[in-house]
């Protein structure tokens, strides 16, 4: 039953992705400038040479022809070549995937580990000073601009204290686990701040709602203590409404954190996107954004499946 449901949902993503690709293609092409503009003002590149390059990449064709050419190639698995580097789009992306997964994975793990206890703490002490402080802190966390926080952390831990490297994936010639951990700590912390802030809010409200339910009173009447009641009875129920937000955030973070990766010179998907944006690298941008879309759609599907796993009353068919 679940298998049939997943299959049906996957089938439904085909028209969805087609529509998304059309919109993305239009946006990318409507944006002012183009991939060859860097050469336009360069006196050593002749007009003929420029036309030749344009022809080689199909940039001389009308946009809708370019779209269909792109689509035709993608259907058979060819994502095209980066205009900036000349290497296949897929190769470039795969190369950057690992750092992004490492950074995103760590940030998400960190977020879960911090957000759940904070949400529970807030919910069990509703109206207390601690709850007020956490509420304030989470609003601050949601509102803090990522680049600003990143710069402050770099200033403190790299410039002032000199404890952590300010940027990069690893030191040249090093690459030991410790060295890489030292590099990943700051970007992961920055990346998790917003998710911690928003998830802890959702878990707090879910928890606050659940703690007023009759079955929680039943659990106390059985002789459970607060911890037992929360772990055995409340948490799973409280996670149900929060799961959508968490899953979609998973999709977003794993698809690359543009600002964080740029500020910390992290060689991931996010920075690749920034670089490709600067160069109007059409095939690269399309590849990256389509992958991001797939990530978000997959996260939504996972969220729906997680719902059913957490709540036996939900059945898909």
């Amino acid at each position, binding site marked *: 039953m679940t298998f049939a449901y997943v299959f049906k949902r996957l089938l439904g993503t085909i028209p969805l992705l087609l529509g998304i690709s059309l919109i993305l293609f239009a946006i990318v092409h409507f944006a002012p400038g183009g991939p060859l503009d860097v050469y336009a003002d360069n006196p050593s590149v002749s007009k003929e040479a420029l036309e030749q390059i344009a022809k080689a990449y199909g940039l001389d064709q009308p946009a809708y022809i370019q779209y269909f050419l792109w689509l035709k190639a993608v259907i058979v698995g060819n994502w095209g070549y980066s205009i900036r580097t000349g290497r296949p789009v897929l190769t470039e992306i795969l190369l950057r995937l690992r750092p992004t997964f490492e950074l995103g994975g760590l940030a998400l793990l960190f977020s879960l580990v911090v957000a759940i206890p904070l949400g529970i703490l807030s919910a069990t002490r509703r109206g207390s000073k601690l709850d007020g402080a956490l509420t304030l802190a989470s609003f601050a966390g949601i509102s803090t601009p990522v680049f600003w926080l990143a710069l402050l952390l770099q200033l403190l831990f790299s410039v002032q204290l000199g404890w952590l490297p300010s940027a990069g994936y690893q030191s040249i010639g090093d690459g030991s686990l410790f060295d890489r951990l030292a590099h990943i700590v700051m970007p992961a912390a920055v990346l998790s701040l917003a998710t911690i802030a928003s998830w802890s809010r959702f878990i707090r409200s879910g928890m606050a709602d659940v703690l007023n339910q*009759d079955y929680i009173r039943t659990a106390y009447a059985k002789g459970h203590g607060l911890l037992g009641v929360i772990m055995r009875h409340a948490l799973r129920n409280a996670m149900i409404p929060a799961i959508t937000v968490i899953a979609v955030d998973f999709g977003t973070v794993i698809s690359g954190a543009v600002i964080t990766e740029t500020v910390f010179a992290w060689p991931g998907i996010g920075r690749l996107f920034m670089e490709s944006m600067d160069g109007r690298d059409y095939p690269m941008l399309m590849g990256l954004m389509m992958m991001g879309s797939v990530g978000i759609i997959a996260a939504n599907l996972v969220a729906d499946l997680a719902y059913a796993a957490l709540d036996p009353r939900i059945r898909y068919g």
Partner: protein
Amino acid sequence: METTSLHTTGSKQGKRLLEVRNLETKFYTADGVVNALNGISYSVDEGECLAIVGESGSGKTVGVLSILRLIQSPPGRIVGGEILFKGTDLLKIDDKELRTIRGGAISVIFQDPMTSLNPVMRVGAQITENIREHENLTSRQARQKAADLLGMVGIPTPAKRLDDYPHQFSGGMRQRVMIAMALSCSPQLIIADEPTTALDVTIQAQIVELIKSLQAELGTAVIWISHDLGVVARLADNVAVMYAGHIVEKAPVDELYARPAHPYTIGLLNSLPRLDARIKTKLKAIGGLPPNLLGMLQGCAFAPRCMFATQICREQAPPAIEVAPRHQVACWHSELVSAGERP
């Protein structure tokens, strides 16, 4: 002892099990202090079934949930009194001792079986966790016991149903699960908080019969909360009538029905449909509404709705007096009332 008790539902009055003295519970809300319980006293003997009746908001539920300190706090707080369970004051013991009593020696059957079971947990797990909280059994033994309990409360193919979720049971079956859960550690006292209110009438009768037979079989004492005097007549040994956070009348069940001595009790009895009444007799409702429990009341709480009320009723709260053996009433005019005279 007194010989007035005519009821046959087992005069197995043993030793005193529970004694509640001057219990006072208040709720500190944004609108002010709600005086939910204004010093109630009652006792339950081993094997006894005490019914506490009254309309919604009279403090019945708060009264019994206070026994296990299950009042949500804040806003609720037990501000005074004693709850002696086998001689130990439950208000003075620490959380750890209290937890061994909750679900162990005293268990609760809640009002609404639809919401009182955890929707995302298999019923078997919900029963076994109670067993394992109090008894040293392996998970397999606990599971076997849970299956036995489900069978005992009349759930067919109990072993198979352990792995079902609450939503796969009907309302009546869920209440049976709650009862199985309440019985799981052989409690000495079961608090049944309107266990049949949320159920269909036919199912209600089944649940009443079930609890009655289990009580007879196991000798467990029961405090049965209800607003339904019809149900109460079928299973209680003694009845306490509550109004506005006070116990206004307390008596053996037959005595109460035969010689009610508080105007409120009479009002409740008159609002019951009777089989022996002539056709087209209208049910008599009690005029007016129960008082708002915000703030202190002066005098007798029932005075504004009472046809017997005089000056003293509005000025001073009546003390409880004994009008017959084991029959107590808190009314200034109980003699008039029980004589059936109209003012």
